[in-house]
């Protein structure tokens, strides 16, 4: 896509800007859709209808909400550290959005095809912690501080199982480049890594998905913003557009981790049926379809499960997920040696 655009525009800066903006054209409509979708899913799980008034089945409800948030007064608490307070949502969103640089939407499009894509993803997703800490600290609210410190502990802890689960795939492919990982899963769907080295990579997906729920603060690991304990956690004091930005980054993060799960384990933009319905545009279709499946599972879990306590969260991370991901790494390693 880069070469194609270069051919048309003849201007590198313009091309790179355009390449950087493309994911935004997905993230914002996605967030608008996902908020509505989550409402509908939760409503139907709970024997109700959800939004029905604004548009057909409430389809433009989120747009109305965004408009409302935009029109709201921008409140910065008097006692807050106003510079940090104002900066924090941008850091959080910046971190979430930067992850999209390496998300391969299609064979023809990936923001930046760097050979350490996965490594970049793991590190950039930690930036959000800084933003959340800023938000919680600057709010000058004890509940926000709790939320911020909880999220710092949680995200830092759960990065380890995420990285270890990803490492199993890296062992198989021998590359950190996400497009090359996609290429390695071409052909029919049994070539996807979820079905390879069975059951090691399948369990790697389970571990990755569980840990990624904690990384994006989703139930059952949503303790940084646990409503019934911490009111709103780090975003208690935020209102209007700043709140919307924090909300947007949560949904952006949800899709980012789902996209990585798709790429690593479900063949990314590959068609499940070899050459049938494959190509750059079909690639986008398959990629988004698989990504949305993970989003659906995230929502499904959210509206089913209670929330774990903060010490139980640490227990699951350090004493369950991390040891098991080491076992998986060992298993995959032994398998690969045995085959050779």
């Amino acid at each position, binding site marked *: 896509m880069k070469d194609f655009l270069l051919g048309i525009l003849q201007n590198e800066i313009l091309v790179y800007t355009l390449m950087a903006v493309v994911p935004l054209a997905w993230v914002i409509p996605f967030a608008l859709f996902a908020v509505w979708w989550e409402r509908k899913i939760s409503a139907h799980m709970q024997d109700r209808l959800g939004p029905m008034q604004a548009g057909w089945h409430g389809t433009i409800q989120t747009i109305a909400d965004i408009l409302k948030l935009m029109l709201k007064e921008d409140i910065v608490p008097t006692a807050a550290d106003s510079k940090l307070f104002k900066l924090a949502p941008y850091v959080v969103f910046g971190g979430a959005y930067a992850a999209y640089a390496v998300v391969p939407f299609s064979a023809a499009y990936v923001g930046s095809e760097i050979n350490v894509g996965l490594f970049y993803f793991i590190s950039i997703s930690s930036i959000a912690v800084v933003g959340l800490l800023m938000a919680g600290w600057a709010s000058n609210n004890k509940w926000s501080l*709790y939320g911020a410190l909880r999220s710092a502990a949680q995200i830092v802890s759960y990065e380890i199982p995420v990285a270890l689960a990803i490492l199993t795939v890296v062992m198989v492919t021998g590359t950190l480049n996400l497009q090359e990982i996609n290429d390695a899963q071409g052909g029919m769907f049994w070539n996807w890594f979820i079905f390879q080295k069975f059951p090691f990579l399948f369990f790697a997906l389970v571990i990755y998905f569980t840990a990624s729920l904690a990384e994006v603060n989703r139930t059952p690991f949503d303790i940084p913003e646990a409503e019934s304990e911490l009111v709103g956690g780090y975003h208690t004091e935020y209102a209007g557009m700043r709140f919307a930005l924090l909300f947007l980054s949560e949904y952006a993060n949800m899709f980012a981790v789902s996209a990585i799960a798709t790429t690593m384990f479900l063949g990314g933009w590959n068609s499940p049926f070899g050459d049938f319905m494959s190509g750059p545009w079909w690639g986008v279709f398959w990629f988004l379809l698989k990504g949305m499946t993970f989003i659906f599972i995230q929502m499904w879990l959210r509206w089913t499960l209670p929330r774990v306590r*903060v010490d139980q969260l640490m227990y699951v991370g350090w004493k369950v997920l991390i040891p098991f991901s080491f076992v998986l790494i060992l298993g995959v390693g032994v398998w690969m040696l045995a085959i050779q």
Partner: protein
Amino acid sequence: MDVTLQKEGAVADVDAGRRPATVPGLGRALRAEEMVINMGPQHPSTHGVLRLELIVDGEIVVDAIPHIGYLHRCFEKHAESMNNYQQVIPYVDRLDYVAAMSNEFGYVVAMEKLLKIQVPERVEYIRVIMAEFSRIVSHLIALGTYGIDMGAYTPFLYCMRDREHVLDIFEETCGARLLYNYMWVGGLSHDVKPNFQDKTRDFCKYFRPKIAELNELLSYNKIFKERTAGVGVLPPEVAINYGASGPVLRGSGVKWDLRKNDPYSIYNRFAFDIPVGMGIKGRVGDSWDRYMVRVHEMEQSVNIIEQAVEQLPAGDVQSAIPKRIRPEPGEVYVRTETPKGELGFYIVSDGTASPYRVKVRPPCFVNLSTVPAICRGSMIADVVAILGSIDIVLGEVDR
């Protein structure tokens, strides 16, 4: 105010002795102290305008001090100002507003004892059915909101859906859905509709599987058990010493239910069990036990309703209502088992048409007093679990 300040000082002193004075490698003293954090009066999990002053050491709660009174409405003064004993009933409704029928029941039983009125059989049966419906409604709200406290939103809406069926029956009977003014001294405001028995039977048939559904979704959920079992253990002797009653007392394994132990109205005619906490998942008296007692009580309430609706006699529900109420000078104390526990009415009459005194012994107020005793040393998330399992309604705590 002075008391609060002293308390804070005392906590700080304890802290100074307990903490290491220096940090290894840093060489100088690190100042560490407990934090005071207000949970409420505006907080999603205090179930109303309760303020819990938490003294916390990180995530650990060192002490929890409930501050009440934000919903004080001068119930006693209002009751004394009424020029008719019947006029107190709407105020009684507003004590425990999620189980208004039960409150009315307690008041009218007390008044009838004071006036020495014998109400018709039909009235007694309808009252028992309504009170047990009220118990189901109250427990559904308690269990559903407890789910929200634990982060599970869906069970709450399932509970509200089932509650709606009961409210429909209430609405058909007396026109109101929350605050009924239905039980009057000596009778009822309305007789039930002709299809009442069928509707009640239908509800019982519908509701039993729903309890099983709630159990599958929430009660036996692994995370839910982890969060509640063994958390906020209230030992039986502590519960008795604090005067706790209702599911809080029974959750601690004490088999005490006024419907059996000090029967009023016609409760001695029905066969039902008193569920108590067994410590199946954790220890006797933990939050899960208190939760589960409520689930089992709903089943027992359905049993009572089914028996009562089959025996419902014919009659006039208003025949015994006195035209004018002027009790002999004297006093009466009657206690009844509401969903929250032992609700006592102490009514003093000076022979006039206005009550001289109407004192309420509210179960929620007493149950809430156990919170500091069982919160110490738990985590902030556990405070939410404990408070939810106590099931307070601030209308009754503050009156």
